């Protein structure tokens, strides 16, 4: 174990190499390209362990992963933005097929017009595809979450997406505690899920089902995904023992007496965490997991701290409704007898969040017309 100055992209690729995969199939796209380059580099040096397959498109990348995962292989892919959108049909297919694929998505705005900044709309628009989604706030989290994603996916037999912001994380060089492969493999172990296809034994895979059968399968996926909180805690106990650090479904930092908190997922959570000492009586709820949505955990934090106001940083926008994290939160809070007020700061287009924006925003009082919904260009 040693600290290395590496980028978020290198952290993702190195974690994949440390875990050990049978196959990587990926197609480069900004800002994910450096991940593919790093994995190709490992492959060229004979350090990848598995096959590196160059494919002609993102659709082919995930189709290739699906085929390999059907044989019980551990596979990885990475993409961003338009690449993720292009995969969309296959994204549904691999969760329905229960392939425990791990994919990194580096957030980037989807056009038109072309834009490279890290809007989260690419990964959030895959909300209903049946994938787990983990959001990372720095390169260390990227390294650690990619490792944990393989354990989670293979335990639940559900695909898992590890998500982080383009440039602010993917292209930022920072100190990352990089574990050795033998330590990581001690924790993760070899892939142990049953193959659906066995060479030499012909069979039919994922044939036509009735709606009734499909319902049962969807119900099982839903109930299985809801097992994540218990599994996540178990994994992180083992992770802490091995590496001396661990994670929670929600990372909360709420000063005593604070009645409001900022909710953020991804890189913006770290800017908020940094700004907390200058933001009076304000806490942070960092969303690490978006699917399954940690509704019960959030309600518990709100009740325990008697929070009356949540400010949600949404680097995305569902046009016609508003910030996606804010929507999901409002839905989760509906069951509370006294739900807190939910305000939304929309940074669609992946615009920058600064400490000053947070200071200005928190000075806005509840009486102002635009209290509930603010846009990043108003500051």
């Amino acid at each position: 174990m040693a600290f290395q100055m590496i980028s978020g992209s290198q952290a993702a690729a190195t974690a994949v190499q440390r875990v050990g995969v049978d196959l990587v199939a990926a197609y480069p796209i900004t800002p994910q390209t450096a991940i593919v380059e790093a994995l190709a580099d490992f492959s060229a040096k004979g350090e990848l362990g598995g096959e590196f397959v160059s494919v002609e498109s993102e659709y082919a990348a995930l189709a290739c992963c699906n085929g390999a995962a059907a044989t019980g292989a551990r596979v990885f892919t990475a993409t961003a933005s338009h690449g993720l959108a292009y995969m969309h049909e296959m994204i549904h297919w691999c969760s329905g097929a229960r392939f425990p694929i791990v994919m990194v998505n580096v957030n980037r705005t989807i056009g038109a017009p072309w834009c490279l900044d890290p809007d989260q709309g690419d990964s959030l628009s895959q909300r209903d595809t049946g994938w787990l989604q983990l959001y990372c706030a720095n390169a260390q989290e990227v390294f650690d979450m990619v490792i944990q994603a393989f354990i989670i996916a293979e335990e639940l037999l559900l695909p898992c997406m590890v998500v982080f912001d383009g440039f602010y994380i993917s292209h930022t060089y920072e100190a990352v505690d990089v574990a050795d492969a033998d330590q990581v493999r001690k924790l993760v172990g070899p892939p142990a899920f049953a193959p659906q296809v066995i060479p030499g034994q012909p069979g039919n895979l994922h044939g036509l089902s009735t709606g009734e059968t499909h319902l049962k399968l969807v119900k099982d996926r839903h109930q299985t995904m809801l097992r994540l909180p218990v599994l996540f805690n178990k994994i992180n106990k083992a992770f802490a023992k091995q590496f001396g650090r661990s994670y929670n479904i929600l990372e909360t930092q709420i000063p005593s007496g604070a009645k409001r908190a900022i909710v953020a997922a991804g890189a913006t959570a770290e800017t908020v965490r940094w700004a907390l000492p200058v933001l009076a009586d304000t806490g942070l709820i960092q969303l690490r997991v978006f699917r399954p949505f940690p509704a019960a955990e959030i309600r518990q934090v709100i009740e325990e701290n008697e929070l009356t106001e949540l400010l949600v940083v949404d680097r995305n926008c569902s046009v016609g409704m508003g910030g996606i994290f804010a929507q999901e939160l409002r839905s989760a809070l509906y069951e509370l007898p006294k739900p807190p007020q939910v305000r939304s700061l929309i940074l669609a287009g992946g615009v920058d969040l600064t400490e000053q924006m947070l200071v200005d925003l928190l000075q806005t009082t509840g009486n102002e017309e635009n209290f509930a919904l603010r846009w990043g260009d108003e500051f």
Partner: protein
Amino acid sequence: MDRQISEFRLHGRGGQGIVIAASVFAEAVFRDGHYARAFSLFGAERRGAPVTAFIRAGTERLMPRSRIYNPDCVVVFDATISGSTLYAGLKDDGLLLLNAGPGWPETVPQELFENQSYRIYQVDAREIAWKHKLAIGSFPMVNTVMLGAMARVSGLVSIDTLLKSIKQRVSASIDANVKATIDGYENVEEVSGFVTGTI
């Protein structure tokens, strides 16, 4: 030193290696016992187009993950890039390091020198790069020269640590790059006006 962060903004052109320079500098800061991050802004990057990179250095691992609007230090790898945005937001007691020298067009706004609180440094990195034959065609590779100068004016990393980081990252012309770094470190000097005719 609690929560203290030094922020650098680097301006250059695609092909000058400013993104690599930023990451090498951050690596050297980390080697010298502090935390650091380096990152860059990308658009449709290509050789010759303006590029911006950032470095944060501090005592804590936690840092804001936003762009840098009020840098402590602006480093201009090519003073022919025009526009006041290069110097925008520089803190009142900030440092400005310019790659410029005899024969350069005068593009640095004179009012920068009239602001007495800035400390302005100049190094003819282009000339030093030529001297050590660090060029791709007619395009001088100035990044290691500028790194040497950055180490000197910022005082954040020692030249020895910087050279270790450079040797680790640079794969070609290592000797020339080491000499260029040392030359940058030794030849950078504070100026009271933009020197183009003689230095």
